[in-house]
């Protein structure tokens, strides 16, 4: 039997699956067309993917000291870049047509979708005690795209035997 994947890998896989489960409708704004995993520094050509696109990248992982019970708490950081093609007919379309969302609105919607899916998902398990999306960077210049970086923080307890 193969060894189980490390806990941080299992949690990352759950995050990918949870974001993949987002469906536009009453609860969410956009259905992600593609979710890809990449290294932190890896150059990902957004133009080669369908949108909306979510790129998941690893961050830092910090273990707290062991408790007397032999387990320890871990803080895991994961980055997600949410992106949607800028389909406005002109850069000022939202000024002329009030129904045309601004890039800021698109970024806010994508962020809200991911945050809602991750923070409200009831099936955590895997020792996870909290999932937060505490920071967003909206200054992500990619020609032809509306994009934002999100920082996801997961705290979980693990017993190493």
């Amino acid at each position: 039997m193969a060894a189980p994947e490390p806990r941080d890998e299992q949690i990352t896989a759950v995050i990918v699956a949870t974001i993949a489960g987002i469906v536009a409708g009453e609860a969410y704004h956009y259905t992600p067309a593609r979710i890809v995993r990449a290294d932190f520094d890896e150059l990902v050509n957004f133009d080669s993917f369908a949108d909306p696109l979510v790129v998941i990248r690893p961050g830092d992982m910090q273990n707290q000291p062991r408790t007397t019970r032999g387990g320890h708490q871990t803080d895991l950081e994961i980055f997600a870049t949410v992106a949607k093609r800028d389909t406005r007919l002109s850069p000022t379309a939202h000024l002329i047509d009030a129904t045309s969302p601004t890039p800021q609105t698109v970024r806010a919607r994508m962020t809200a979708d991911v945050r809602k899916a991750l923070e409200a998902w009831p099936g955590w398990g895997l020792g996870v005690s909290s999932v937060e999306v505490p920071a967003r960077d909206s200054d992500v210049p990619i020609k032809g795209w509306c994009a934002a970086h999100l920082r996801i923080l997961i705290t979980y307890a693990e017993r190493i035997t």
Partner: protein
Amino acid sequence: MTAPEALVVRVESLEADMREIHALLETLAPGAPDPNDLRAFALRARQREKKEQTL
């Protein structure tokens, strides 16, 4: 040149370097975000978190 003037020149030079790097990346990897943007975001977020924990 005074120290503040030298600093302005240095900052302008760094900004020019960054513009060059962005232009180069756009040529080498069009449609790809600059990894330095993510790195800077990560650093800012971690620093803010440390500051909040200290307060």
